[in-house]
């Protein structure tokens, strides 16, 4: 997030794109409700009638995967009606003219044709956003999990830049992180092209700095992303994989593909707190400690580094991940010795200036938001105050590209996957909580009433849903939450796993899979049990 959670309540306009915020980030949802109470306007861009829609002033129900066309046409209106922030564009950006040219064909009428959103709504949204004094954009995987996910994000950045809505309190672009420490894991360099602190592995000076600090020779070749590792394993190039605290069998697209790839590995180690579906395929399984059993820090979606504290002992011989990693390094002949978790944290601070000003005593009571460069730096509640790190932000012209797998006569529906309120991710944790299981016991497919009538499906029936990659049995939930022609399945449920169906097509830049769009078909299963109506 460029802004802080606490700043949301002072937005005078909330533009929520591809984020079911009140279900997936409930506490950020509360801040949004505060802003609405104070009179903020709410625009929701989502194919599903999510809970926020009932609070929205304007709901743009776009067809899945048409975000670029929609945002470009919104920007077309902003240019046409001269609602741009000329002084911001001149002072802090470059390449605006070429970008402006690229918008010329995206009239609201053209936008309506592609997205299904009425032209008037596009025009109204453009005016609302451009005229707001402190608007905030909020998005999650609904924007990024597309083969044009990077393009979608460029569009959002362009929209904020052309209206000067960046770099102020309560004004900015805010991707909401979906897991407790996605931000931190990325910050700490668990990505194939960057060392900790987004320092590129392919710059020789940077590499030498890390080689000196770690007393080891480092590879100059950027590594493989998670999706590429699975592909590489399937091809037989990747021979061994060490998976810590992840369950790609259920979370990655196309489960058959993932399982085949993992089974092909010569050696698979899985380190986790439960015998996950992925661990069942491992050669060695290592028992780890969970969040309540260790000391350390998590970095939340607003870049705030906060203390995690040990409350209870892990079961049996389960060990903290840090214990396991340092012991294994020792067995491999590398001395990785630390006195405490804080010792590791301070090494990370030495390698990445944005953390250099933090230590555990400074974040004892309240976490600090990076960048925090010196011991007296108060942290950074919002980014880009007074300028961008690269001096001028660049407009990137983006053209609409359809999603990779569009519905056709054989597979006529578009599948969207996502989360629901009570279950979490692959269910490894929440499905072992009895109360959660009672409230959210099983998977379901949300089907628009018209589509259900067309297929002769009643509410609560078991149906078969298939894609080119696989098929699952699942309970039908007939609901107006789904746009006609689309269905939604939460991906938490192993016995009705949405990712049996999803496609492994990825974004060319970010390598993020297109989990939000794939083509499926729906069939009723005869003699299926009736589901009790509640």
């Amino acid at each position, binding site marked *: 997030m460029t802004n802080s959670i606490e700043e949301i309540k002072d937005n005078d306009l909330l533009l929520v794109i591809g984020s079911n915020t009140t279900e997936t980030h409930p506490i950020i949802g509360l801040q949004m409700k505060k802003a609405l109470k104070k009179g903020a306007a709410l625009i929701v861009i989502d194919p599903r009638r999510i809970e926020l829609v009932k*609070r929205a002033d304007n709901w743009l129900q776009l067809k899945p995967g048409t975000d670029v066309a929609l945002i470009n046409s919104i920007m077309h209106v902003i240019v046409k009606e001269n609602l741009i922030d000329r002084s911001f564009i001149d002072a802090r950006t470059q390449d605006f003219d070429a970008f402006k040219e690229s918008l010329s064909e995206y009239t609201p009428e053209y936008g309506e044709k592609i997205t299904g959103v009425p032209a008037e709504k596009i025009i109204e949204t453009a005016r609302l956003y451009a005229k707001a004094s402190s608007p905030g954009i909020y998005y999650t995987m609904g924007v990024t999990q597309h083969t044009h996910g990077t393009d979608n994000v460029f569009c959002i950045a362009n929209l904020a830049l052309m209206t000067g809505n960046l770099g102020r309190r309560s004004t900015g672009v805010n991707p909401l992180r979906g897991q407790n420490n996605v931000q931190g894991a990325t910050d700490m360099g668990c990505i194939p092209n960057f060392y900790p602190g987004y320092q590129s592995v392919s710059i020789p000076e940077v590499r030498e700095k890390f080689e000196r600090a770690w007393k080891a020779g480092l590879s100059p070749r950027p590594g493989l992303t998670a999706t590429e590792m699975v592909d590489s394993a399937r091809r037989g190039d990747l021979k061994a994989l060490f998976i810590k605290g992840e369950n790609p069998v259920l979370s990655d697209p196309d489960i058959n593909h993932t399982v085949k790839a993992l089974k092909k590995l010569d050696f698979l180690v899985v380190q986790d707190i439960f015998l996950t579906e992925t661990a069942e395929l491992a050669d060695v399984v290592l028992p780890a400690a969970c969040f309540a059993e260790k000391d350390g820090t998590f*970095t939340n979606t607003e870049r705030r580094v906060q203390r995690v504290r040990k409350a209870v002992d892990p079961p049996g011989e389960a060990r903290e991940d840090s214990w396991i990693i340092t012991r294994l390094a020792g067995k491999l002949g590398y001395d990785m010795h630390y006195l405490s978790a804080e010792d590791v944290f301070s090494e990370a601070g030495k390698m990445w200036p944005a953390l250099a000003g933090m230590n555990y005593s400074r974040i004892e009571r*309240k976490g600090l938001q990076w960048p925090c460069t010196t011991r007296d730096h108060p942290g950074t509640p919002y980014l880009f105050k007074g300028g961008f790190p690269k001096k001028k932000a660049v407009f990137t012209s983006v053209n609409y590209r359809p999603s990779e797998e569009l519905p056709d006569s054989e597979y006529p529906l578009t599948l969207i996957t996502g989360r629901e309120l009570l279950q979490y991710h692959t269910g490894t944790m929440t499905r072992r909580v009895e109360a959660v299981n009672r409230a959210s016991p099983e998977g379901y497919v949300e089907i628009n009433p018209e589509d259900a009538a067309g297929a002769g499906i009643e509410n609560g029936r078991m149906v078969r849903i298939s894609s080119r990659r696989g098929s699952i049995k699942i309970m039908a939930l007939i609901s107006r939450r789904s746009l006609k022609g689309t269905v939604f399945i939460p991906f938490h449920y192993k016995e009705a796993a949405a990712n049996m169906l999803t496609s492994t097509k990825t974004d060319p830049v970010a390598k993020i899979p297109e989990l939000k769009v794939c083509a499926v078909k729906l069939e009723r299963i005869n003699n299926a049990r009736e589901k009790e109506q509640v």
Partner: protein
Amino acid sequence: MVNLNIDGEQISVDKNSTILDAANKLGITIPTLCHNPELTTFGGCRLCLVEVDGNPRPVASCATFVQDGMQVRSSTPYLERLRSTNIELLLSDHPNDCMLCERAGNCKLQELAYYYGIRENRFEGTRRIYNTQDNNPFVSREMEKCVMCGQCVRICEEIQGARAIDFSYKGLWTKVTPPFERDLDCEFCGQCVGVCPTGALTGKMWSNKGRQKFREVDTVCSYCGCGCNLTLAVKKNKIVRVYSRKNTINEGMLCAKGRFAYEFVHSPERLSRPLIRVNPKSNWVLEDSDQPYGSGKPRQRLAGFQDFKEVSWDEALEYIAFKIREIKENSGPDAIGGLSSARCTNEENYLFQKLIRAVIGTNNVDHCARY
């Protein structure tokens, strides 16, 4: 700014303050049950009554704005008698279940009854009757313990925006209920549980696990990226309940997962020893497993475990090191990869990428940011 005098002490406060705000600033404690600074003023419990010179009757300090020159008394024999009578009235319709109540020792009503020394009750008689059938899995609702402070109703509407409960009926028969007195069926955020001053609303999973003298550990939630601050109440190496403090980035608010979904920590299915595969990888099909989790069986008896044997840490790590060295020698370091975890700490993630980069010698390290 407005100047006033409370119990002989002078204070200057903003003109939008109430007498209660001013008293709090002076460190003068005035008892309340229904007041919550985050919510709209209710003025229902009548415990915060104070005397103001020139007013013929006591006023509710939570609902009365300050005025210049006010002379306020927060405690007089008359006020204390009124307060004591109000508590007695509340207790006349209370089950006195403190022996078993989850909130005993941390209950505002119990504390007030203790302070005012109320044992006998002049008003005993008719009691409200509640339908105790409540099948929701999260919130225990023993509504006969309700004191009608209305904090749950207000937080549900004003903060959560859910409006799942409200007052119904009138007079003595007033109750807080979901629509048509059905079971609670809401987002189960438990904000209501967090503000309830008595044992009327508690977490169902708290029951009989320990209510006092637990160790409190402040930490951060392990679910979504909001980073809510949690306080884990720990007794005998078990988490017995979870709540959040007011002065945190999430202002004491939590969602259903943060507040109620901690049971997995102590699941019998947790891994507790390293495992090495002894049987070949089975033909693995998802659809076969109808009820995959929460069977309550100890982990050794679960399907999936029969293909492994338990080994010591030394054996497991030696084996991994041997295999990694072998594969690195035969196929080079880039034939090895590591997937780290967005669920683990910064420190563990730092160490993991260092292991993959500096020890194994490849940049094949990533995590689940894309899922």
